[in-house]
């Protein structure tokens, strides 16, 4: 007979990831926390001591503005990505099995190329002598190259493009689980296709939409590569700000304070997600 494992023995399975997370996630986080309350060493690094001066500095309207802009960029990116991803996920979920496999493959295909390389490729696409401008000029649609790069538009293009798979996949997974007889039942009860979508399909996919929002919103908020490569001078979001504190301004404590704020902010978002969207299915287990 097969041996049944006891719960305490199963806990051992958690040991390797626990060690990994402690070493490479919790420890650096604690270091950042300590840095954020330490005085600044002008040569870079930190001095011994305790100060809240860096947190006080965050309240400066300049930095608050950047934070609000970051939230806005992440939110708008998330909304655009959602609007583009949903129809794709919907089509995939109800496609024939063969088409479905091909589409899944196409959605994850971009991951075969490095993110940075893909962002630089947009420079070639959107630049003044880029593919888009060349085509439009040749077609005579425009006579002067358009400024498509180094502005807010380019930042959104980069963010939306990079995030699409992360939004498509969870929504697809949710819709793919849905039994088509639910749609038939809705039609059978008198609801047309549009009402069936709003009352049955969309609510059914909420868990996937919520997961997609989290997967897109959070990385976008902390990202600094996309505005750096595709953005202009005023496309600074919190990721760039932190990046500059560490690499350019050599102000590690202030960078740490900003990072700490970001981490706590995101923890709030994730807590809300877990509370209201029940991704672990806890409610189902306890009330069932």
């Amino acid at each position, binding site marked *: 007979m097969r041996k049944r494992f006891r719960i305490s023995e199963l806990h051992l399975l958690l040991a390797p990831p626990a060690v990994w997370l402690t070493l490479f996630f919790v420890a650096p986080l604690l270091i950042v926390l300590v840095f954020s309350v330490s005085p600044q060493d002008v040569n870079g690094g930190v001095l011994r001591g305790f100060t809240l001066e860096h947190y006080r500095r965050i309240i400066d309207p300049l930095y608050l503005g950047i934070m609000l802009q970051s939230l806005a960029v992440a939110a708008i990116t998330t909304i655009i990505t959602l609007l583009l991803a949903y129809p794709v996920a919907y089509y995939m979920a109800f496609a024939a099995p063969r088409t479905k496999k091909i589409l899944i493959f196409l959605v994850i295909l971009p991951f075969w190329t490095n993110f940075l390389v893909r962002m630089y490729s947009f420079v070639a696409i959107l630049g003044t002598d880029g593919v888009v401008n060349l085509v439009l000029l040749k077609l005579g649609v425009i006579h002067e190259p358009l400024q498509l790069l180094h502005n807010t538009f380019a930042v959104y293009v980069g963010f939306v493009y990079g995030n699409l798979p992360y939004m498509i996949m969870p929504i697809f997974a949710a819709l793919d689980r849905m039994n088509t007889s639910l749609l038939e039942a809705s039609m059978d*009860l*008198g609801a047309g296709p549009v009402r069936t979508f709003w009352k049955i399909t969309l609510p059914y996919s909420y868990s996937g939409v919520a997961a997609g929002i989290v997967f897109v919103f959070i990385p976008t908020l902390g990202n600094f590569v996309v505005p750096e490569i595709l953005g202009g001078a005023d496309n600074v979001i919190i990721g760039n700000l932190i990046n500059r504190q560490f690499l350019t301004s050599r102000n590690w404590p202030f960078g740490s304070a900003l990072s700490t704020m970001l981490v706590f902010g995101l923890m709030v978002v994730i807590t809300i997600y877990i509370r209201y969207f029940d991704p672990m299915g806890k409610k189902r287990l306890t009330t069932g």
Partner: protein
Amino acid sequence: MLELRNVTRKYGAVVAVNNVSLTVPKGEFFCLLGSSGCGKTTILRMIAGFEQRTSGQIILNGRDMADEPAYRRDVNTVFQNYALFPHMTVSDNVGYGLRIRKCTRPEIDRRVGEALAQVGLTGFGVRRPDQLSGGQQQRVALARALVNRPSLLLLDEPLSALDKKIAEQTRLELVELQRRVGITFIYVTHNQTEALALADRVAVMHNGVIEQCGTPSDIYEHPRSRFVADFIGSMNFFEGQVVSRTERSCRLRLWETWDVEVHKPVTIAAGERILYCLRPEQLKLSLLPPSDQANSISAILRSKVYEGETTRYILELANGRKISVSQNNYIARLWHDFYDVNEEYLLVWNCSSGEIIRA
């Protein structure tokens, strides 16, 4: 009233439903019976509007429905997997159709309450489907369909996912409910017991066509084809030909060996090949030769299978054919009838028993 006229459904070269015509009067409990792939579910789905017919007419209350979308048909369906909306409470599930039809809030509440009471689920309205047992979910699906008072209710194997005891109990409730609400039911099943117990009329389907349509007793007692005779219950087939016939009876020769009298009029001419069908319960084992109103063939008892209410005896004829006889155990005990394996007995049956069909 529902009428199907020459309805055909093809999937490429495959003909799922082949030129089916049938009429179901208002208030009837009609059953489509057949094994999987016979086309019964396709017919149901065409009536509901989930499938398009390739040709033919589907007429409901005098109007051809074939091109109407599912959401404009006065038809509701109870799905095999119930298809309850998982993100809604039981009440919201049942009230869905009424909300779509823009009924007022008080009317929705009243009718949902009535529908839940009808299926014995009063007080379950606030629950979610995944908090209900299979039998309860089935009732919710039923209430959700009935609450709209459709002129036609379609049921796609609604009891197949339930365990046997609950299915049997629900079966009785279903018949009672149908009588009470008076809505026409079209019920698809592969389970012949269900079909015989529930339906006013049964259509037996095979390879996309209706083999026979009639009352349960008609189907069981007077099968008109070998398929129907074999599919419903168990049946012994005696091959033979008509030797002679009169107006009210005929003489058959079975396997060129045994001559038997059958007191039934036949339209089959003398000399033609026939199948003589006898149910196991129409046959009896005996040691004594029968009266002149009965036929007999001698056979050797090869095995007995105890089935509780009855015992099934398998006998072998002189030509090696196996014949199955079913006898009531209670009556056998009253009469002190015991039969031993490998002994020779007489297979006896009444001259008026059995059906003769063309081979």
